[in-house]
């Protein structure tokens, strides 16, 4: 816990730069660049992202890829970033709340809430806004189960969310007898996943999936505002850094942590709507099929510089990490088409994650670490 001398993200960046000014005297330029890259996760992510984009564009220009790595292709792949960023932000909130905070159940909440949304919108004939609100509230309730157990009763987060993962995913399968809901209204919802061309911009500008504007950007904006501009955000960083000290400064630690899990559940509820729209069907296993949604979300959060020990993490890091992974994956699919490509994506994800984590450990030891 020697790394957490600063209470949060914004201060971390601030003190990072003051440390830089102090240490910057008598330091050579390459050394300074290296230190910034190693200690500022955002800088490293930008560099990696630029490397991926430049390399892929070069490969594309030399016809090594099966299709051009163009801006319209990149824009189209952003549809994959929508659930990833949102769940990454959910993990950001709970991991930052500290004390081993983590949420393995987000994928299961997506499955279960997707089914509830499917019933409301596809079977009971609710209007879209009403069903959307229901999804968010229901997701929040699932998160409240986690939050109550973890924050008020002191259950370890990893185990609690493992248990609710089992519970929610089991209920999602049972509730409609393992059958998906794909009635007409649900299938019509597919249009939210389609691409739109922006007004006021020339036609040459790439068409970006609508989900980016309706779900991703609002969520990221709200989470950023809450974390960086409200007292709740300050409290969350405080309890994540040292919850005993936070308690003594008069912060209601349990309620602050509880709220983080509720928010993570509510975001998962939104992701459920996105997923239903994307597949034009409410599938009972949408959030837990394969490796599920929780593992990639946690991976993205950690890659984005969220400290697993709590108290450190930024929205920009999560967004950049998602863009890095999504656009790297998109490039891999073009370079190595088909099954081999999707396998190589697993490899890339694993290597990037371990590399980032080891680098983090190294830079913390070398520079005293502001992450």
């Amino acid at each position, binding site marked *: *816990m020697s790394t957490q001398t600063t209470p949060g993200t914004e201060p971390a960046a601030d003190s990072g730069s003051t440390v830089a000014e102090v240490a910057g005297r008598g330091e050579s330029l390459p050394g300074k660049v290296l230190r910034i890259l190693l200690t500022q996760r955002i800088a490293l992510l930008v560099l990696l992202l630029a490397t991926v984009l430049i390399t892929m564009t070069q490969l594309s220009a030399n016809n090594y890829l099966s299709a051009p790595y163009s801006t319209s292709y990149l824009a189209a792949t952003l549809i994959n970033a929508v659930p990833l960023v949102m769940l990454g932000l959910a993990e950001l909130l709970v991991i930052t709340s500290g*004390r*081993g905070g983590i949420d393995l159940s987000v994928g299961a909440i997506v499955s279960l809430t997707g089914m509830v949304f499917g019933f409301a919108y596809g079977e009971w004939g609710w209007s879209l806004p009403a069903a959307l609100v229901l999804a968010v509230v229901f997701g929040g309730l699932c998160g409240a189960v986690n939050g109550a157990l973890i924050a008020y009763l002191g259950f*370890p987060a990893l185990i609690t969310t493992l248990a*609710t993962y*089992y519970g929610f995913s089991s209920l999602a399968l*049972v509730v409609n007898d393992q059958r998906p809901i794909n009635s007409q209204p649900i299938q019509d919802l597919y249009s939210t996943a389609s691409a739109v061309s922006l007004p006021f911009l020339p036609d040459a500008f790439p068409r970006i999936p609508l989900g980016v504007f309706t779900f991703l950007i609002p969520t990221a904006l709200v989470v950023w505002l809450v974390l960086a501009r409200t007292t709740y955000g300050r409290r969350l960083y405080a309890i994540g850094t040292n919850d005993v000290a936070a308690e003594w400064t008069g912060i209601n630690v349990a309620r602050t942590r509880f709220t983080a899990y509720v928010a993570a559940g509510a975001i998962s509820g939104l992701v459920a709507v996105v997923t239903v729209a994307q597949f034009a069907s409410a599938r009972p296993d949408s959030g837990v099929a394969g490796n599920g949604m929780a593992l990639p979300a946690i991976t993205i959060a950690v890659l984005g510089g969220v400290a697993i020990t709590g108290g450190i993490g930024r929205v920009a890091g999560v967004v950049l990490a998602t863009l890095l992974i999504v656009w790297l994956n998109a490039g891999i699919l073009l370079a190595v088409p088909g099954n081999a490509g999707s396998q190589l994506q*697993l490899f890339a994800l694993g290597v990037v994650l*371990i590399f980032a*984590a080891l680098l983090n450990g190294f830079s913390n030891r070398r520079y005293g670490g502001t992450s």
Partner: protein
Amino acid sequence: MSSSILTPAGRPDGEPAAVAPQDGGRQRLLPSPVTGQEMVLIVVIALLWLALSLATPAFFTSGSIVPLLVGMTPIALIGVGMTIVIITGGIDVSVGSIVMVCSVIVAQTMVGSGLPLPLAVLLAVAIGGVLGLVNGVLIAYGRVHAIIITFGTLNLFRFIGLQVFGSSTVEGIPRTLNFFGRGEAGRTLGIPHSFVIMLVIAALAWWYLRHTAGGRHFYAIGGDSQAARLAGISVRTRVLMAYVVTGLLAGLASCFVLAQGTSSLAANVGSGLELAVIAAVVIGGTSIIGGRGSVLGTVLGALLVQTVATGVTQLGWRSQLSDLFVGLFILIAVGADLIRQRTRRAS
């Protein structure tokens, strides 16, 4: 340990006994062989078995008990390793991927060259050990939280496994491993071999963790790794060992998984296994914070999980409901553990 800011560092079960000497002045340093949680588990399992055999006459027949015992062996076996890992304060979420890599390589080698049984087991255990070593080196020497490293290796190992699979299932696996299966070849006097092997390994691990200095070191590391290091324990070597043992056992478990399967092996083998194993360990009373836990509890936890799965199917309920019960059991187990901690602290 960052995850335990408020709770005092986990301590071995026997601490209170050591503080209050009662056996004629001779201090008991060890907990009683069967702790509270394990007693509760035994009672719960006994009640479940009783209820199930009353509800469905088919339950207490060898046709139902043998698959139950064989079915729990992979989870219990990996659970032994996972218990050690969690006692040190770590976690390993890559075991499902290790099982996948081992089983696909062994299956393909058996199809290709008719590998005999001992060599197949040796191959699986060796591969598992190597993958465990990768985890162990990265965690012990990289000084990164175990969950991050094993999330990474989960993807890496899965990649290796899929490469070996080569985008198709393995077909026509010979029945070399029937010795571990649930069929007639897998039993002596009606007792399945895989279950006996699992029991022997679990018993060895139980004795090692309880009665040797080396075993107690794992508890010390989980309690407070700084203090353990200052006390002269080679923390890195011990942590490395925990992950290698888990890898070795996952390798052996992959043989059991193959033996229980059909003659074809699909790429989804082992997925989700890590969560089932962690569930069994936690239901068995091992503290996720580290420093407390026992192998006996893990074996009982695995037995409980498998009993619930069997029971739900035999009662004709939807099989997916068993996961709901597993979730509930985890919460009850953790809740019971918390209550015990609080009463202990209060006394």
